[in-house]
């Protein structure tokens, strides 16, 4: 029988890996956010460390360059007192399946407890989770265009801190939905938490086919898409999109889909502006908005540490369940 996403839960329904938001129950997401809330205060103390994961070894396995995500995962692991190992694999050299799994088994032989994986191919984290030893947890730190669950969770955490309830909210995600793993994970999280309306805003070239199936409303016009929104999430635009004939130019994109003070004025007056970073100022968002009073972009970054601490401690802090195996 096909193992659907039972892969990320153990036999008692607890989170064993975090691979995708899809399939998480509402209460499970809330538990993660609540736990993260407790970790926030750890950052304000004299000793910014708790002994929870003392003696555990966390390996950051990054097949794709990243500074911010890698740093926050490393910081999160260290604040939990875990030992952290960082392995950067040259992205240009393709790592074939067999050698990838060989490497995993070698790391397992060194008694590692958790792999935090980032990879340019969708499904890489699932592949690794399918092949690790029973005691090892896998956290997906971004796979291709598929998922970036911890980013989505920290976004939910930030929204909840600012807005309280999810039910009354109208959320607009603006930008390259097609290639965005962040957007996919946010969409699953927001629909699971039950926002009032979820919109995606972009030209057709950046909207994937059948995206409505995920429970979103599609807008091609920025002004319509932003009207009365409570939360505006801007996505990063990669420069490659110009070469792939997805867009004519950065200038035209900014003119039609860039968030400026004028366009933001169409959203609710207390709307918050989010961005997973790194920001392209003057491409998807004007500097005055990114640094403006409605922006919570820096809050997202600091919340990221607490959310990742929550996810790491919840997945590693499970009593071994009956029948746990790969």
């Amino acid at each position, binding site marked *: 029988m096909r193992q659907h996403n039972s892969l990320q839960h153990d036999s008692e329904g607890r989170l064993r890996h975090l691979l995708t938001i899809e399939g998480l129950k509402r209460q499970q997401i809330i538990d993660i956010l609540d736990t993260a809330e407790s970790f926030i205060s750890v950052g304000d103390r004299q000793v910014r460390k708790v002994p929870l994961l003392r003696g555990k070894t966390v390996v950051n396995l990054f097949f794709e360059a990243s500074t911010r995500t890698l740093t926050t995962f490393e910081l999160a692991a260290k604040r939990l007192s875990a030992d952290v190992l960082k392995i950067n694999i040259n992205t240009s050299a393709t790592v074939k399946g067999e050698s990838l799994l060989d490497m995993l088994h070698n790391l397992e032989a060194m008694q590692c407890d958790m792999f935090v994986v980032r*990879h340019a191919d969708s*499904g890489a984290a699932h592949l690794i989770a399918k092949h690790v030893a029973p005691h090892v947890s896998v956290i997906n730190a971004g796979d291709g265009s598929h998922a970036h669950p911890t980013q989505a969770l920290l976004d939910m955490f930030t929204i909840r801190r600012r807005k309280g309830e999810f039910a009354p909210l109208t959320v607009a995600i603006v930008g390259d939905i097609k290639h965005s793993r962040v957007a996919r994970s946010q969409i699953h999280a927001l629909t699971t938490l039950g926002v009032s309306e979820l919109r995606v805003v972009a030209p057709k070239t950046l909207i994937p086919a059948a995206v409505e199936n995920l429970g979103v409303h599609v807008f091609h016009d920025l002004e319509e898409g932003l009207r009365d929104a409570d939360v505006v999430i801007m996505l990063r635009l990669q420069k490659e999109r110009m070469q792939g004939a997805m867009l004519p130019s950065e200038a035209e994109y900014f003119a039609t889909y860039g968030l400026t003070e004028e366009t933001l004025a169409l959203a609710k007056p207390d709307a918050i502006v989010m961005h997973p970073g790194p920001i392209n100022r003057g491409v998807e968002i004007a500097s005055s908005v990114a640094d403006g009073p409605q922006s919570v972009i820096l809050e997202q970054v600091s919340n990221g540490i607490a959310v990742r601490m929550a996810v790491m401690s919840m997945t590693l802090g499970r009593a071994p369940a009956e029948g746990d195996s790969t």
Partner: protein
Amino acid sequence: MNITIQHGRLIDPANGIDSHADLHITDGVIAAVGEAPDGFVADSHINAEDHIVCPGLIDLRARLREPGGESRATIATETAAAASAGITTLVCPPDPSQPIDTPALVDLIRHRAKQSGHARVLPLGALTQGLAGQQLAEMATLNQAGCVAVSNGLQAVESTQVMRRAMEYAASQGLTIFLHAEDPWLAAGGCAHEGAVSVRLGLAGIPEAAETIAVARELQLIEQTGVRAHFCHLSSARAVRMIARAQYDGLPVSADVAAHQLYLTDMDIGYFDTQCHVRPPLRSQRDREGLREGLKQGTIVAICSDHQPLGADAKLAPFPASEPGISGLETLLPLTLRLADEGLLGLSEAIACVTQRPAEILGLLGSVQGGTLTTGARADVCIFDPEPYWELRADELQSAGHNSPFLGWELKGRVNCTLLAGELTYHTCD
């Protein structure tokens, strides 16, 4: 050497036969059906009681990996697997590692097949040199060397001008052209059907239009050039309708479908099951129904395995980086029989899809070189028990490739004997 296959239920769709009758074979040729000819004395008997006796299966598309990919499979391993699955004839398409664009390559493949003696291998000659889509291959020479038809494999002929001329030339030589309909630009970088599943999993999509646009272009050129064309492994319902329309308009086109396309959809990818990574991709349920309907209506005439044996590491990679393909020889017959069990086709009709109809497309039927049990035909015979259920297990696959999304499926119908020109190439019975 005289053989009599006794007490079996004989199904020979080409002659409309479905009855209990004995089959008599003399020196590799069918001598008679029913009563033995005068003076016939059988040297051996095969008891086929409760079994079905039908022509040996003809698989229109199987990659054998030799020469060039012997680490994955060889003609010897794959023809042996074919024999165990009741298949007596395999059509091998060109691909970049073995472009089949010289008579020497054709000879090599045929020679290796003859050496192994498990199944006949019919190579498809290249349409363009090196499959590069620029210069025509020596089609007439390849035909003389033994290529039954021509094809550019999975490589696109990007230039419409080159495709037109290739068709014109093939038509002049009386050659059938086998087409893989896929627009190279729309398919570029894709690994799954563009739709609900690809958007969820963040997989680059291959839109239905990649197939329909290519079908549309080829149909226009077929009409203009008059070439006899066969569309391989269709994947979309819309392409089936386009071909039905062309057939209605009198164009000389036929089409086949890979067995897995009749059972699986993009939903079966689940969470990145690389066994479901195939090309063309598994499409929607609507497409699967369209393919089944096309088979029922006769737009699609044949079912192939689209066999692609792969090493274990080929599927142990993230989905987009894994290699497409299914090791399909050993599921061809049971999946075809299942269509009869499900009531989509009659049993005889289902068997025709893997015997008589592919023989027609290859021009084997007229020369009684396969696909029928007519008196005087080559004695390529498959004897199978239609009843037993069995589970497909990787360690029991005969093919060197253990890549199948059907592992763990319960299949029905199992081959007991296969005869190639009267010689037993596989048997489990005494």
